[in-house]
């Protein structure tokens, strides 16, 4: 492996990692405020991708408008899911919530399957995105450059919201203690809904990026990506937005680099996220940025 090839893979890894990171943020934030693994989150990403496809291929919208459609649509879906399916179960045993999440996930996958068929649809990628730049032997498409840049911008925005706004502070407080937040006159349910909205919006962006980079959308696309994104969130440190991003990049890089340099293990590329997850659980369960949520239940 020479330096050029390595850098090339680095770029690819950055791109893939960004997409995992965007989706992982949604998982980690919902887990932070609700201690819930939102199984339906990967499918929300799929819905976002489909909305983008729908916007461009069917409605003929320009790219940015389609992205907006996807973001608004997914955010609404995310908030709706919370309102209709998760909120009524706030006081129920955790397992009920997890099962419902699986139910929603399965529902989304199959309803899209029934409505749109299981075969992949080609995403109409705008021409300028496929434009190739050659920087001293390293090949980027505009898309693969745009993805990480936009991701980092969005990350900065999220961190700003979390640390510099009133709502962000409420979100962080909620991650530590629901009761106190309620006592301070903040409507916890509203904050939770905002979290769902934000996470779903980011997932939609991730979905569109995915559709642009591997230009296709299909109803089951959220399953594996969602699983890996959640693994990324755990690896980076569940509950931490920065952790989700770091985890996403680690998983993205690993996948790309191993496939490129150890092609005989190519068939296992989907397994790496899982292996990393097990390793983290074995050696540092709180993840890389390790936040320990186990406050006293006594």
């Amino acid at each position, binding site marked *: 492996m020479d330096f050029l090839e390595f850098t090339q893979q680095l770029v690819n890894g950055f791109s893939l990692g960004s997409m995992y990171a965007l989706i992982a943020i949604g998982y980690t934030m919902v887990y932070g405020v609700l*201690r819930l693994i939102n199984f339906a989150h990967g499918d929300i990403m799929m819905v976002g991708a489909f909305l983008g496809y729908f916007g461009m291929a069917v409605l003929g919208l320009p790219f940015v408008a389609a992205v907006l459609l996807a973001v608004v649509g997914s955010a609404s879906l995310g908030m709706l899911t919370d309102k209709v399916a998760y909120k009524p179960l706030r006081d129920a045993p955790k397992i009920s919530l997890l*099962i419902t999440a*699986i139910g929603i996930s399965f*529902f989304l996958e199959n309803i899209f399957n029934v409505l749109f068929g299981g075969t992949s649809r080609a995403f109409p990628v705008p021409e300028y995105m496929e434009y190739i730049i050659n920087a001293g032997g390293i090949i980027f498409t505009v898309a693969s450059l745009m993805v990480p840049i936009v991701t980092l911008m969005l990350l900065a925005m999220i961190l700003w919201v979390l640390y510099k706004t009133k709502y962000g502070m409420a979100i962080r407080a909620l991650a530590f203690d629901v009761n106190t937040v309620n006592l301070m006159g903040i409507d916890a349910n509203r904050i939770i809904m905002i979290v769902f909205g934000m996470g779903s919006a980011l997932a939609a962006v991730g979905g569109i990026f995915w559709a642009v980079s591997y230009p296709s959308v299909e109803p089951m696309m959220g*399953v594996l990506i969602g699983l890996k994104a959640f693994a990324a969130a*755990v690896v980076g440190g569940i509950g931490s937005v920065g952790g989700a991003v770091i985890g996403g990049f680690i998983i993205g890089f690993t996948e790309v680099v191993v496939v490129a340099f150890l092609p005989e293990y190519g*068939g296992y590329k989907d397994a790496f996220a899982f292996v990393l997850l097990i390793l983290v659980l074995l050696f540092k369960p709180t993840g890389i940025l390790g936040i320990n949520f186990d406050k006293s239940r006594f």
Partner: protein
Amino acid sequence: MNIVIRKDQWINLAIIASALWFIWFASTHFDKYTVRILNNIAIFTILAVSYNLINGVTGQFSLEPNGFVAIGAYVTALLLLDGDAKEYQYDIEDPYPWVLGLQANFVWALFFAGTFSALLALTLSFPVFRVRGDYLAIVTLGFGFIIRILAINNPEITNGSLGLNDIPEFSNLYWTGGVAILAVIGILNVVNSKYGRAMKAVRDDEDAAIAMGVNTFKIKTFAFCTSAFLEGVGGGLLAALLTSISPDLFTFFFTFQLLIIIVLGGLGSTTGAIIGTVLVIGGAEWMRFLDEPMNFGLFETPAMPGMRMVVFSIILIFVMLFAREGIMGKRELTDLFKRKGKK
């Protein structure tokens, strides 16, 4: 008083006797199609009552069945197929010599299937149960994926995506029904012992259970490995029933079906798991029409493959939102006969 009551024992014996009689009757009187469904119900009963042990009784949300059933199926198939059959059908790559040599009779094959699954479950238990958190679900979900990937990427062992065919058809109602009866008895014996009590305690309030001296890590591991064992055995029976297995058989939908079964029946109730199995497996057959074009008189709908799955997921969501206890709640059949104290 709560010691083993004579009356309960008679009822249990009567139930077992009727079940045995039914197995004989069905085998000799029912048509092939019905027998096939009954075999399915029997196997899924084994899977459901064991899945219910980790999910419902111990309250640890897990998505493991498709993984362990796959393992059980492959182990059994590899042990039942003889060397020639393997040489003949391995098309992608030649099988390893040790694969050719694998041979055992049906009972041993099932036993190894279960034991191998249980051992894998044991290794998974260490990273997962050591840590407080809800990682079991994600890990078991990933585990199922990994097993499929392994099956596809190791054609020298599993014949890859082509799967294994011409497995000797050992499974009949005596085997499936018999193992199902044993499985139900075994699970009920666990539930009605100090281990079952501890599992329920872990479910109800893990911290209080620890405060009472329960080794919660050990209890969760016991429940998980027991489930894995029976799921492995069930997988073996399935392989010998279908005579053909491939990686695509053991997808997440497989687990999802079991989830619906135990939720519908009542999470935590073994009786409920049995009832749920009959309803869902029987119902799935009945619901096949949803995937076909339907004529409503005034209008027709086209074939919508996957509509069944949509209905399943809606049922699950509905039950969770409006009838969380399912049919039996946490009660068993014998609880219905008791009328003591309050409620």
